[in-house]
């Protein structure tokens, strides 16, 4: 089968179509890794491009993300025990006091779609929970989101906690969310700012030397 059919179905946001096509590809003996690399990853890259060209907006990105996850959900169990080929490990969360997670969720899926291993800590994440997650496994990037000016200070508190735990030397910090700016990112000593999910993937790739 042509793996580009899966790619097209993801871009269209056709989750049932993706599931059927992925099942077919697996049945035909295509390696899960190859399905991911040659259909899901290019599909999410295409979604990112269309978003940046203003052909896609959040709704189109959301349905494509769900479709990608439906495919990935079938493939992951087939890869248990295999050597990870992830581009890097990213721990992501919306900071303490902030329950907004739509943007953060999109970032997680786009990163996953770009080949990252993503640990999603959810929303309203206290600084110590970030610290614990980073200590659990070697992590390349920690991503923090805040939607409100009133929760931006929680981002600074999380930076402090990471610093006190001695983690800032080994992990890069990527920040995003509506009220944030590059200036604020620099001010709190984060390594990268991304205004949207597509830009977050580009920054993350650059931070792990893949960009």
């Amino acid at each position, binding site marked *: 089968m042509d793996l580009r059919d899966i790619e097209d179905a993801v871009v269209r946001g056709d989750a049932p179509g993706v599931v059927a096509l992925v099942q077919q590809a697996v049945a035909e003996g295509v390696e899960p890794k190859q399905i991911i690399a040659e259909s899901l990853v290019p599909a999410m890259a295409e979604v990112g491009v269309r978003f940046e060209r203003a052909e896609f907006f959040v*709704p189109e990105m*959301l349905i494509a993300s769900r479709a990608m996850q439906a495919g990935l959900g079938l493939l992951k169990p087939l890869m248990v025990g295999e050597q990870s080929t992830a581009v890097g490990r990213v721990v992501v969360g919306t900071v303490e006091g902030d329950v907004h997670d739509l943007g953060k969720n999109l970032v997680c899926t786009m990163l996953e779609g770009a080949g990252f291993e993503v640990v999603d800590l959810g929303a309203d994440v206290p600084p110590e929970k970030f610290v614990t997650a980073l200590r659990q496994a070697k992590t390349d990037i920690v991503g923090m989101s805040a939607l409100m000016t009133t929760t931006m200070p929680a981002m600074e508190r999380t930076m402090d906690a990471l610093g006190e735990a001695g983690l800032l030397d080994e992990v890069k910090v990527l920040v995003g969310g509506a009220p944030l700016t590059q200036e604020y990112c620099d001010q709190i000593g984060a390594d990268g700012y991304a205004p949207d999910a597509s830009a977050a993937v580009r920054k993350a790739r650059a931070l792990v030397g893949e960009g």
Partner: protein
Amino acid sequence: MNSRERVLLALDHKEPDRVPIDFGGVVSSLHHQAHRNLLEYLDMPTEKVPIMDMFQQIVDPAPALKERFHADIVGLFPHDSSDFEFKLDPTTDSFVDEWGVVYRRPRGGYWYDLAGHPLREGTIDELNAFRFPDPRDMNRVKGLADEAQRLLKETDKALMIHAPIGGVFEQSYWLRGLESLFMDMGHNKQYVEALAEKVLEWLLEFWTLVLDEVGPYVHVVELSDDLGGQHGPLFSPDLYRGIYKPRHRQLADLIHRKTEAKVFLHCCGAIRWALPDLIESGMDIINPVQVSARDMETDRLKREFGEDIVFWGGGADATKVLPFGTPGDVKEEVKRRIHDLAPGGGFVFAPIHNIQADVPPENIVALFEAAHEYGQYPVGP
């Protein structure tokens, strides 16, 4: 010149004696904590004032504060329906509105977030079976005409009537949930349109009832529908033009038929792309002019759209300058926005949305002092 004359001239795209100031409306007030800090800072009595909006935890500011900041507008608020009773659940710090939407405050949070939505399935059957509150419940307008007449007689302010819910898009996602409605936009536009139509029908009924009562007394009618994110449209402009724009037009047309008042649309975010459509739909005023969003440069907006729409807001960048700058930064920012937006009239100064809990009181004072100082016509360079 009194407040009312000042506002009406500005709305008529003429220069009054100074730029009118809006402080204390549903989208131009402040969090109760910022209000208390401000009164303490000014050595004013910290009197208890009512929470105007539970969700946002904003107050109707103390009258002395409104006078001090030269507020030119006074609000008129329709009531809930007679069978609705507000109840706060203290164990979960949550409440349910008359539509069945659940709001919850995160621990340590300043205000409530949407936490539950009545339209769980997103099917036409569910929508048809859903019981909307009665838009024509007489309690909504009980005493409203008397109150409007009293405000006209006893104050010299312009009168603005506020909407109890958001617009066609906003109330759709209140009922359905933002992420779910976005998914529907991707998969099921027919449902999105059916829901929009139901909300529109409700709003048309509601505004008919309200404006039949107070239409002759009010100067501004507030509508609200956010269309922009920080960097662009929340969803595709094609979808907006197909589903929401025609319904905005129906609402604006109804209001214009019922009253001489101007139609005010609160529409957050990067919305320069939508302004020609909103003008075409009959919106007279755009708020809050979120200057930190993409393509919202005030000099350019005024040049391109200043003759066709009134800018209401623009009062200091609310993501950087107002919360995190110095009072001097705030004054400079206000001066710049007035310089951009005030010439020729067509501008009402207001904070960009409600002032958040942690904004320093000295910055709030600087904001309104600068609005009064630099807002004197003719405005300086």
